Structure formats: structure tokens, C-alpha cells
């Protein structure tokens, strides 16, 4: 066993024990891919700071004691779901307890023709071959051990399939609740969104914690967009202060397909988001926006990786972070322009606001350009609040604390303003305001 493997022994053992009970066990292709993922997990181990892609993020808080993979059946309190819902959001909703679909808490009535939404486990049961063939197709090479772990345990999650030329007129909300099995458990949801040619949809993927406990969610979403498909994908992490979340979004875009993804991280002891996008055919457009708040001892790591595999594609990245207390954030934006991907147009932008002297940001662009006729721009800023603006507001009668808060909210608002769903936007604005309470924007010392 390699060095890395030591920290995965418990997970490997758990997988071997659980495998026969996983949905569609006995489907040869799926058995093989789970076994292969398990093998990768053994080889890769869980990442450490020796891995270039985890250089600034220590996983020791996660690896120091293994989590127990949750099994289906944990109760999920309905009242928690109603407390957690987004006011005024008219959506189809799937609720998951520690990664397992809860049909009785879900809202899927009157789905229009051409729209299939269900639990992945259920669909694997009924159509194992077809679904198994789709799984992993947006993933490419497994980037790190957490993803391998998720693939080894593929069982439940959300399956969304939109037929060609179908426009879904309501958003689809996936609500993942961690902690239903109690402290120390791990949830491993796997989601698959398949957008037919010319289809349109909006999906919200929200991760919340039932209680402030030591929990881990390790979630992977695959998004497959056929030609001209258009998907708005809104990721939201509201993880408890002691909770951990590792999430991956893997997207493949066909000709002239559009992906507009937003990732909003409100809280969590450690949140790592991998967003990997492949622009596979001409005319594709991908925009990745992000807002991360890191207060207390929170650590938030956003890792984006956009590959232009074809000419005439556009990618945009706009990530903003607000860091206070001893918060630490990482932004790593990798853009690869493959040979032949001429006329690539790519802009990456990362801006950070540091509210305390102890907050820390590591921001790293990584451009790998193998075509010659391209336009690629990137920029990163790290700054404090503008004291001239603080004084301007104070000179209008607003106290220093309130002025700092107004400016901080304004900084964050620009990402939230890009969210098209009004109900989700106002909800996130309110959540951000709450997070950016006077106490959070106070000066560390003065």
C-alpha cells in the first residue's frame, strides 16, 4: 500500500462491506467502475498538502479520524426541511438525508413532459445499464481521492434528465441535509444532470447541516449538456461551523451549449469546491461565478479548471471572497486552451476583501495555452475596505461599523446580483447580511 493509502483503509473496508447492498449491484459495468474507483482511492489516498492541487488546504481535520459512510434509512425531520426552505421559491424539490433521497419530503408533482427527476438509486434499480453508462462520462480523469471515494460508493443522489428542446419553467432544487445519521457520518451523493439538445433548466444544489457536528459530505455532480443546451447551476453551501464539505462539479458542453454556474459558500469548517468544465465543441459558453465567506476559522477552497477543447468558446470566471477573523480562502483557477482551440475568449477574475489582519487568501491563476489565436485575461486582487469610502459614509452620519458593513455587503452583492432567480437571490442576500453581521465585519484590532 502506498503512503497515501493509510488514511483510506476504513473507507475501503466500508465500501467492500456495503457494495453488495448498493443499487444495481451485479450490473457488470457498474461493479467494474466502482471497483476501479476503489482501486484509485487506494492508490491516491486522500489528498494532502504535498499534492500541488491541495497545497494551501490541509485535510488533516478530515483525515485525523475516519468518517462512517451513512446508509439509507436515517430519519430526516420534516420541520427542519420547512425551516430551511427558500421563501417564495417555486421549485421542484428533491430532499436528501445524508445523501439518500427522501421521496416523501420531495415535491415532484405534475412534472411536465420531457422532464425526468428522480433519485439516482431508484433509477439505477430500474435502468441499471443505461444509467451506469452515463455515470462518469463528464468526470474524465479522477482528480483526487475524494472523487474516487464518491465514485466507489455511487448509490444515490439526484438524476435529472431533460428531453431535447424542452424548457423547464421552474427551477429544480436539490437539498442535501447532512447529519441525519448523527455525528461522524459521511454522505456521498452523486448527481447526474443530462440536458438534451436545445433544452433549458435551472438547478440549485444546496448543502446544509442538520446540526453543528463533525460531519463530512463528499458530493459529485456531473452535468452533461448536449448541443445548444442551457443550464443554470446554482451551488450553495451552508455548512455548520464544524462541518466539512468536499464537492465536485464536472461539466461537459456540446456545441453552443451554455453553462452558468454560481457557487456560494456561506460557512463551514472546510469547504472545497472543484469545478471542472470541458468545452468540447464550438460556440460553447461557460461562466463560473463564486462568492465565499470565510469567518471564524473557516477554510474555503475553490478550485476551477476550465478546458477549451474546441475553437470559438467563451469562458468567464468571477469569484469574490470576504474573509474575516482567522478565515482562510484559496482560489485556484486553471484554464487550459488545447491546441486547435483558436479564438478562445477567456476571462478570469478573483477579488478578495480582507477584513482582519489574521485572515488569509491564496489566489493562483494557472493558464496553459497551446493555441496561438486566443484572448485570455486574468486578474486577482486582495484588498481591505476603502477607508475613503468608510469616511464618506461616516460623514453622512453612518457609524463606522455600519459603514464597513455596507461596503462589505456591496462588495459581495455583485456576485449575488448575477443570480437570475429572484427568490434565491434575495434569500442569499439575506443570508449574507446575516453572516456579515456587525460582529463579523468588526476590525480585528485598532
Amino acid at each position: 500500500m502506498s503512503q497515501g493509502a493509510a488514511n483510506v483503509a476504513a473507507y475501503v473496508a466500508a465500501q467492500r462491506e456495503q457494495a453488495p447492498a448498493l443499487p444495481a449491484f451485479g450490473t457488470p459495468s457498474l461493479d467494474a467502475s466502482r471497483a476501479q474507483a476503489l482501486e484509485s482511492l487506494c492508490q491516491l489516498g486522500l489528498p494532502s498538502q504535498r499534492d500541488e492541487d491541495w497545497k494551501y488546504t490541509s485535510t488533516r481535520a478530515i483525515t485525523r479520524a475516519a468518517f462512517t459512510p451513512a446508509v439509507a434509512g436515517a430519519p430526516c425531520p420534516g420541520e427542519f426541511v420547512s425551516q430551511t426552505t427558500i421563501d417564495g421559491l417555486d421549485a421542484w424539490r428533491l430532499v436528501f438525508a445524508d445523501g439518500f433521497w427522501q421521496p416523501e419530503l420531495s415535491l415532484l408533482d405534475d412534472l411536465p413532459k420531457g422532464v425526468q427527476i428522480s433519485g439516482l438509486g431508484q433509477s439505477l434499480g430500474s435502468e441499471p445499464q443505461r444509467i451506469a453508462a452515463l455515470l462518469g462520462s463528464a468526470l474524465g480523469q479522477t482528480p483526487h481521492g475524494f472523487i474516487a471515494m464518491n465514485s466507489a460508493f455511487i448509490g444515490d443522489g439526484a438524476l435529472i434528465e431533460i428531453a431535447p428542446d424542452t424548457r423547464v419553467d421552474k427551477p429544480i432544487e436539490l437539498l442535501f441535509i447532512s447529519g441525519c445519521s448523527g455525528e461522524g457520518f459521511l454522505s456521498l451523493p452523486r448527481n447526474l444532470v443530462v440536458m438534451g439538445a436545445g433544452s433549458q433548466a435551472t438547478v440549485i444544489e444546496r448543502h446544509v447541516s442538520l446540526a453543528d457536528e463533525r460531519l463530512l459530505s463528499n458530493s459529485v455532480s456531473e452535468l452533461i449538456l448536449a448541443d445548444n443546451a442551457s443550464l443554470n447551476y446554482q451551488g450553495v453551501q451552508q455548512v455548520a461551523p464544524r462541518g466539512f464539505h468536499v464537492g465536485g462539479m464536472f461539466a461537459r458542453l456540446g456545441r453552443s451549449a451554455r453553462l452558468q454556474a454560481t457557487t456560494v459558500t456561506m460557512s463551514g469548517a472546510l469547504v472545497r469546491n472543484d469545478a471542472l468544465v470541458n468545452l468540447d465543441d464550438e460556440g460553447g459558453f461557460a461562466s463560473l461565478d463564486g462568492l465565499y465567506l470565510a469567518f471564524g476559522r473557516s477554510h474555503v477552497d475553490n478550485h476551477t479548471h476550465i478546458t477549451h477543447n474546441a475553437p470559438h468558446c467563451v469562458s468567464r470566471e468571477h469569484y469574490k471572497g470576504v474573509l474575516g477573523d482567522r478565515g482562510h480562502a484559496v482560489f485556484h483557477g486553471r484554464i487550459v486552451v488545447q491546441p486547435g482551440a483558436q479564438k478562445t475568449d477567456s476571462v478570469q477574475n478573483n477579488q478578495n476583501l480582507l477584513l482582519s489582519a489574521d485572515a488569509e487568501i491564496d489566489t493562483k491563476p494557472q493558464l496553459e495555452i497551446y493555441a496561438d489565436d486566443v484572448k485570455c485575461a486574468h486578474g486577482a486582487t486582495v484588498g481591505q475596505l476603502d477607508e475613503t469610502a468608510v469616511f464618506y459614509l461616516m460623514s453622512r452620519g453612518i457609524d463606522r461599523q455600519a459603514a464597513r458593513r455596507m461596503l462589505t455587503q456591496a462588495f459581495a452583492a455583485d456576485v449575488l446580483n448575477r443570480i437570475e432567480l429572484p427568490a434565491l437571490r434575495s434569500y442569499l442576500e439575506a443570508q449574507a447580511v446575516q453572516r456579515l453581521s456587525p460582529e463579523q465585519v468588526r476590525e480585528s484590532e485598532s
Partner: protein
Amino acid sequence: MLKISKLTVTVDGKTILNGLDLEVGPGEVHAIMGPNGSGKSTLANVIAGREGYQVTGGSVSFLGQDLLSLAPEKRAREGVFLAFQYPVEIPGVANVYLLKEAVNATRQHRGEEKLDAMDFLKLVREKLKLLQMKEEFLYRSVNEGFSGGEKKRNEIFQMAMLEPRLAVLDETDSGLDIDALKVVAGGVNALRSPDRSVILVTHYQRLLDYIVPDRVHVLAGGRIVRSGDKRLALELEAQGYGWVESDPSAVSAA
């Protein structure tokens, strides 16, 4: 209203104001003129409470209070308003939001109820009309992408909303075309009342055709070197500032 005695201010160890005296009575409009770099903005900023200016001597009393001991927001709530020479752009903060927070902070300070949405809107509309501004302006970010003239007009609009006791206008006239200048002057004149005072910092006499001052002062060498009525401004316009710049001490001795 305002009494400044022997005010000495340094910036980064450099003395900018050096024993400045100035008294502004209720209802009065005073113009302060002077060459570039003579310390006009320094005086305005010290009155408003901006950081970075060290008051090393003298005193400023406003309505009988020691103004220098108050935090900037307290000064504003007590009725001091500074129209900035260079208004600050604040992306993401809508004008209407700033105004609501500012108006209510001042009202709370006075022990008054916050304005409800209806009354606030009524007040805003009245003042927009005064400054000939469109309502859509309210929802734009504070000064962001504004032309120089729009920024200055916005300062006066904020002043109209806050109805201060003492308004200090720092070169509000620079960069305004003649129509905008008239509108801005109209806004200031509308505020004039027996219990409000205005200090106009300006470089040009032009503004004083529209806002007629009670007193005109020349600031040079860190203090007021000459004071007079509105005719002094005309004289300065004709002569320029060469005479104070060449030998300020000679003037102050005169």
C-alpha cells in the same frame, strides 16, 4: 454657529493650517477662497473629522460643543455636512440606501422615529425635484460612473436630504457647466435659513453670483489673510492670487 480659534493642523509633519481664526454666525454664508494648496480642503476635512490631519493647536466649537472631540458620524448627526471636493464612488451601494441609512441615523440621534417608506419617498421626490434629478438616479450606485457634474449635484442632493445646520461645500462649483451651477446654487439657496450656515470653498468668483456670500475670506499661508464682503471676491477675480502667493506674510501684515 461655528467658531474656529488659532487652528493649527499638520499633515505628515507639514504645517498646513497655522493659527487660523474664523467665525460663522447663524444664517450666514461665508466664502473661502485661496490659491491651490493653501489648505482649503484641509480646513473642510478637519471640520468633518477626516483622519490623517493632526490638530496640533487651537479649537473648533460648533453650536457651543467641542467639535474636534466628536467622531465624524456624530458631527454629521449634529448637523455638519461636507460636500466633498472629490466625491467617492461606492460601487454596490445604491444612492437610496445610503440616503435612508443617513437620514435615519440622524433622526435617531435626535430622538425621532425612523421615516417610514412612504414619508421617505415623499422627501426624496421633493429633493430630487429641487435638484432636477431623475428618480432612476436613486437606484444607481453612489457616484459610480457619474460625470464630474453629476457627482457634485449628488453632494448637494444629499445635503438637501440631510438638512444640515452647517454645510461646508468644497469646490462644489468646479467642473460644473453653467446650467448645473444654477441648479446647485438653487439647492444651496433653498437651504438658506436663519439657523443654517454655509461655508463655500471656491476657487472662482462665478459661484458667488448665484450664492451671494455675507463674508469672503482669503486663505493663504495657513491662515485667513484677508476678509471682506462680496466685493473682495470680484477683486480677487480681477487680480488673481499672485499677490498672496508671492508674499503672503506681507499681506497678513497689511
